[in-house]
């Protein structure tokens, strides 16, 4: 087994954990946590491919990961802002109870 | 002969380390070298912490026309030892409802993270523990992690004062971390490197015997002032010590800590101050370089220690002088004055780069910064009118 497949398997596992968290938890914030985990798993993949790929000097994978980190920060800020906004309207962050489009 | 002696004295710790490392078998050498460096950093900065605490207590006393501690040992110089023993033998009280694991981890995380910042600080010539290419980024990554330990301490205590103190501390640290980073970016723009060794090395040049420190350029000076303000806020020091405002919230996030854990927070706070002074000295005050060319015979590590202790004296002096800010003043100052000034400074740094050599760029850059400072200061000093307080999230 090559080191790259090790990293890829870890990334896949973290991605699956994040997905499971996003799909099974009731709390909206935990869903966001799951999404963050998935994004990070993708970053790990990108960096692993960059490191073990044929052209590491091209920096593409690394750059992709850096931009992805920046975008994830924006995503977290907006996502959590939305959660707070929803909480203020409905007094809950339980996704099973948030089932109406009407505020 | 003299110069070689001075060089040896300059590198004495490096040579000592090499000598000790050479004594152990080859496979163990990296490990022993690392352990030696870590032990040296911890011992030296813990000692400086003790000296700083004593200086603070005696200095504040003198500023308030008191003697300060003068009982333990001659002139009270053993006071830190007495304090340490007292903290160690005190009972460690943990609140019944506290989250024990997080409560236990918070001070450890703080101390570890704070000490890790020293890994990239150039303490002397060739005396960086880990000479890292992205050293500055590493330093700020560690600084950002300290916020988490503050939150852990505040939340796990299950105490509203701790919680409020932690929220205040985090809000303040995040707000002032941005100017802190931005001012460092100015230095990075001037050197073209994120490595702190490189930054210190660049400043170790002299014209007419005077050093090329960044603080002696217009935007460097402005950045240094902003850095000092942001660093004071970042380390929760007076006048930005709202997170531990005794009059309102007892001791802030470490209200529920006692004994050794409290000592750890205390140590963490002072070591963070020393470390951020070290960063400021490296970025703006030439790191380990001597203030005059002729003084280069004095070892480089001595200058570094002198610089950080001077910075500590200024911290203490400010604590003895300034009253505590109010929360809204703190935030307004960060977002409406320090951050715009820093951004402008960033632009001036670019301008400086493209204006070429000569007196003109000095005049233009100084004039822009001074004008912005005066106008910004005027605008900021306008008295604000407050309406009735509204509670946004507590409805």
């Amino acid at each position, binding site marked *: 087994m090559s080191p790259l497949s090790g990293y890829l398997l870890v990334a896949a596992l973290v991605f699956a954990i994040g997905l499971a968290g*996003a799909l099974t938890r009731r709390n909206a914030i935990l869903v966001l946590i799951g999404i963050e985990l998935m994004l990070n798993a993708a970053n790990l993949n990108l960096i692993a491919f960059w490191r073990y790929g044929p052209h590491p000097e091209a920096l593409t994978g690394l750059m992709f990961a850096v931009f992805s980190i920046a975008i994830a920060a924006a995503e977290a800020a907006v996502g959590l802002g939305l959660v707070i906004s929803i909480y203020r309207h409905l007094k809950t962050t339980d996704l099973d109870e948030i089932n109406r489009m009407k505020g | 002969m003299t110069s070689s002696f001075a060089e040896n004295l300059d590198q004495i710790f490096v040579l000592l380390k090499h000598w000790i490392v050479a004594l152990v078998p080859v496979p163990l050498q990296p490990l022993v070298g690392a352990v030696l460096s870590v032990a040296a950093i911890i011992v030296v900065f813990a000692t400086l912490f003790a000296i700083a605490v004593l200086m603070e207590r005696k200095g504040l006393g003198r500023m308030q026309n008191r003697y300060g501690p003068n009982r333990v040992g001659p002139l009270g110089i053993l006071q830190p030892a007495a304090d340490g023993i007292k903290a160690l033998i005190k009972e460690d009280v943990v609140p019944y409802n506290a989250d024990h694991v997080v409560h236990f981890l918070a001070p450890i995380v703080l101390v570890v993270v704070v000490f890790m910042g020293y890994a990239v600080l150039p303490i002397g010539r060739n005396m960086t523990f880990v000479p890292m290419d992205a050293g500055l980024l590493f330093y700020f990554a560690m600084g950002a992690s300290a916020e988490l330990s503050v939150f852990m301490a505040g939340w796990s205590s299950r105490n509203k004062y701790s919680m409020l103190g932690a929220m205040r501390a985090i809000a303040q640290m995040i707000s002032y971390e941005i100017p802190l980073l931005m001012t460092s970016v100015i230095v990075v723009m001037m050197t073209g490197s994120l490595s702190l060794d490189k930054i210190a090395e660049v400043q170790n040049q002299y014209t007419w015997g005077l050093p090329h420190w960044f603080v002696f350029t217009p935007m460097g000076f402005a950045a240094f002032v902003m850095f000092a303000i942001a660093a004071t806020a970042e380390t929760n020091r007076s006048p930005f010590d709202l997170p531990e405002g005794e009059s309102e919230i007892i001791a802030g996030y470490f209200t529920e800590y006692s004994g050794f854990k409290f000592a750890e927070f205390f140590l963490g706070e002072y070591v963070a101050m020393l470390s951020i002074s070290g960063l400021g000295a490296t970025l703006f005050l030439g790191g380990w370089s001597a203030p005059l060319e002729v003084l280069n015979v004095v070892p480089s590590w001595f200058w570094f220690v002198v610089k950080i202790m001077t910075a500590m004296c200024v911290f203490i002096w400010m604590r003895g002088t300034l009253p505590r800010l109010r929360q809204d003043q703190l935030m307004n100052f960060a977002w409406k004055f320090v951050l715009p000034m820093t951004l402008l400074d960033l632009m001036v740094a670019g301008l400086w780069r493209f204006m070429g050599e000569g007196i003109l760029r000095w005049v233009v850059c100084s004039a822009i910064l001074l004008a912005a400072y005066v106008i910004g200061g005027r605008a900021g000093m306008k008295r604000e009118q407050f309406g009735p307080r509204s509670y946004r999230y507590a409805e």
Partner: protein
Amino acid sequence: MPSNPGDVILFVILSALTVAGGLAAVLLRNVVHCALALTGAFIGLALLFLRLDAQFAGFAQILVYVGAVAILVVFAILLTRSSETPATGVFSKTWLAGLVVAAAVFAVLAWAVLQSEPALPHAPGEPQVSVMQIGNALMGQYVLPLEIVAVLLTAAMIGAVIVAMHEKKETAK
């Protein structure tokens, strides 16, 4: 494995830290504990980045995720009063379906990775990438994405502030 046993052990430890942090982040009952466990997972990932010689990405990961995202998450938790563990279950009604989907995704990914094993490059390149190179790339080849990210971050910041801002009309009602 071609790499030496020390590297393997380190890799296993770091992966274990990451996976344990991730598992704790989705499984623990107390939401604040979840956020702190998530921080553990982020640190594990940052260390894995460092193992992959991506110093810049590793430190940026700690700076952004531990210093900013984790703090944002705990702030959101406290502002929405989620830190009290709910009396009802913490898992959604459709948890079984979610778990099956996640397991299926992992199975497919793992199968794909193991199937393509022979095709994967075995000898790793030795990238000597300095921060200087990254900076040059950001300011040269990647300057357009950089500017777009800058605009995106500004938009996100303004958006987050507006979304979370108090609506005056709401309270007047």
